[in-house]
């Protein structure tokens, strides 16, 4: 290994590990884990212990772009054309509502507050316009991370995914307009209004073209392979290309990655499901790293009193704007009640685009001075400080909203459900048990009244001594008269193991698979070990599948 690689790998390893511990700690406190990642970042970063400095943060910038690319790609994967066909108009109205209202509210409030401090009208309006435009952007990463953590599904989830993905484009457009007006108002800069718009059109259009081309290419590459390793290699390769080209060509990175995912899901909806699944499984450490660095980068030292006031006005204005705008947009769009009531709460996060735009603004208006500070620096510091705040309040708000909307836990897989269940959740309490001397004819009589395919055999003390399955029972069908004189004791197999109601279901299922058992008795967790019910592998699989379909049905019912 080259010696200079070691520190970077050490930083990555430590950041992922520490971030993940922070995430778990916050999860235990019932706070979304993303807040934990960011908190660890703040602790070790520029506002904390300074273990991560500018050099390290800048050196790991490519990982941030990669994480944003993955987030964009996965969001694109959620945007099948049916979503737009069904909800397209609704999404556009909500998008316009939440973005424009935030822009207007923040723009007005910041302009007024700034004027009170500076007495400079044009500069205050410029300040308001720029911060207003920045406020309209919503960070997808933290929001989406919460949606995935809580396995949400439904109309609110669909709307949030679409809105957080699309409002960056609108934010860029608004910024472009605001920057052009600001140039006119302050008499600074060389960029005209028209050229600003042309540049934004290029940034957005270029991203879309790049994403579509990448989607077409990946679709061709994975068309004839079922090898997950090769598919993963192709995706990561093309995603890295999209991110790299997007940086090189200065197009919008998230939009390019999102269009990439969107193109793929629309070209090959069934085949690409696995593709998105592979990336989802691969992404957690990258997210962790991304958010740790988001936290580490936040620096709010040097902010004066008036800047804190503007920051407070910005946060209040943006929060009001998002809540009001999302509600108005949802009403205008005729959206469901859950979207009207809770969408605004899901739109508080701001990060990459907001900070990116603030850096652009600082470069463009670096020469202007406001309240004794460079306008550019003021914008950067206010956006950073407010990012810190909204990144802390944003994820819990999303959690609250999806919980209240009833969408939590509706996007589960069979695997997720198994992990969350204990034996008592799925055991068959109605599976009859028979005394050892019961005749087989008695068992036959009880079969029509129960779902069970296997039965426990009990001794005189009611302890489970064996199991009789259909395999044994069917042997008696050759000579029906046998059922009158063969007893269950004659047919039973000894019960090798017994389960307790509190045993974890995945452990029980794994045990059954490893030992070739198709069923196991469940007994009480005391000395008596009395019979409680039965677990049958086939019945568990059926129950879990039904529950997944039920939850998806609820979510899709909300969606419909």
């Amino acid at each position, binding site marked *: 290994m080259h010696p200079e690689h070691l520190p970077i790998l050490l930083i990555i390893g430590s950041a992922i590990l520490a971030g993940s511990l922070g995430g778990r700690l916050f999860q235990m406190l019932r706070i979304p884990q993303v807040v934990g990642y960011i908190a660890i970042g703040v602790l070790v970063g520029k506002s904390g212990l300074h273990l991560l400095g500018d050099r390290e943060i800048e050196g790991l910038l490519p990982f941030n772009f990669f994480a944003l690319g993955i987030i964009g790609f996965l969001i694109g994967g959620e945007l099948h054309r049916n979503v737009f066909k069904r909800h397209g108009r609704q999404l556009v109205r909500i998008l316009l509502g939440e973005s424009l209202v935030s822009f207007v509210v923040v723009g007005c409030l910041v302009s007024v507050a700034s004027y009170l401090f500076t007495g400079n009208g044009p500069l205050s309006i410029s300040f308001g316009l720029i911060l207003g435009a920045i406020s309209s952007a919503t960070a997808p990463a933290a929001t989406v991370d919460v949606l995935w953590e809580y396995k949400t599904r439904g109309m609110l989830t669909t709307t949030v995914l679409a809105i957080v993905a699309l409002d960056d484009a609108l934010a860029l457009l608004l910024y472009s307009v605001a920057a052009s007006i600001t140039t006119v108002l302050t008499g600074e800069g060389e960029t005209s209004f028209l050229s600003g718009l042309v540049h934004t059109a290029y940034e957005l259009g270029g991203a879309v073209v790049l994403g579509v081309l990448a989607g077409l290419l990946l679709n061709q590459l994975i068309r004839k392979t079922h090898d997950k390793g090769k598919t993963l290699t192709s995706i990561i390769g093309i995603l890295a290309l999209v991110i790299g080209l997007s940086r090189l060509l200065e197009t919008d990175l998230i939009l390019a990655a999102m269009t990439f995912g969107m193109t793929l899901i629309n070209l090959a909806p069934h085949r690409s499901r696995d593709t998105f699944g592979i990336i989802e499984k691969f992404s957690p450490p990258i997210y962790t790293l991304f958010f740790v660095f988001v936290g580490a980068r936040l620096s709010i030292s040097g902010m004066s009193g008036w800047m804190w006031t503007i920051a407070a006005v910005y946060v209040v204005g943006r929060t009001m704007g998002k809540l009001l705008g999302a509600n108005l947009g949802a009403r205008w769009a005729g959206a469901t009640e859950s979207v009207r009531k809770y969408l605004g709460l899901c739109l508080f996060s701001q990060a990459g685009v907001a900070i990116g735009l603030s850096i652009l603004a600082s470069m463009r208006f670096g020469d202007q001075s406001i309240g004794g500070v460079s306008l550019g620096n003021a914008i950067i510091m206010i956006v950073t400080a407010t990012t810190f705040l909204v990144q802390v309040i944003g994820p819990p708000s999303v959690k609250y909203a999806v919980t209240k909307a009833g969408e939590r836990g509706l996007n589960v897989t069979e695997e997720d459900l198994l992990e969350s269940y204990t034996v008592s959740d799925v055991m068959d309490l109605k599976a009859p048990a028979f005394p*050892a001397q019961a005749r087989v004819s008695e068992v036959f009589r009880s079969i029509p009244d129960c779902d069970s395919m296997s039965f426990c055999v009990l001794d005189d003390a009611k302890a489970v001594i064996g199991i009789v399955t259909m395999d044994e029972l069917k*042997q*008696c069908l050759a*000579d029906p008269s046998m059922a009158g*004189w063969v007893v269950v004791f004659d047919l039973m197999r000894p019960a090798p193991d*017994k389960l307790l109601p509190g045993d974890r279901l995945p452990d029980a299922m794994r045990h059954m698979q490893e030992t070739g058992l198709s069923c196991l008795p469940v007994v009480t967790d005391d000395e008596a070990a009395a019979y409680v019910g039965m677990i049958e592998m086939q019945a568990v699989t059926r129950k879990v599948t039904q529950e997944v379909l039920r939850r998806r049905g609820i979510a899709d019912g909300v969606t419909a």
Partner: protein
Amino acid sequence: MMAPAKGPLTPPTSVVVQSLSDVLTPSRVCMLSTHSKADALDSLITVLAEAPEVGNVDALTQAIWERERLMSTGIGLGLAVPHVRLPSVSGVVMAVGISDQDIVDYESLDGHPVRAIFMIAARADQHATYLRLLSLVSAKMKDADLRQTLLALRDPTAFYSLLIGG
């Protein structure tokens, strides 16, 4: 609570019993002369224990009586089929006892005395083979003519020949 599995519930490889001659030899057909169920079963256990498949006579005796305690194996029509599965038995085997006297205390299902006892022992995991053998015996003895003829015989060799051939 989950202890290591002592044995899987998946069906083990079973020996297919095509004919009673697969499990019964002429030497394991014997004449009994008793009214008592206990005497008859003990005699038959001694005969069956001579089969090389039976590894432990005490275990066989205990299992036969344990099974009788659960429910009588007198299945009616003058027949009894005591049957057990045991880890100490290496393969399915059978012994038959014909009594020239009515065994009145057998508590058969139809309340009639027993005259012929078909004792079966199998390995613990030979479920299918064991049940097929029970079915085979039951089906064969349902033939009223054959049953009447067999129960009237007093010669073990003739009984064996007719049972196997019949």
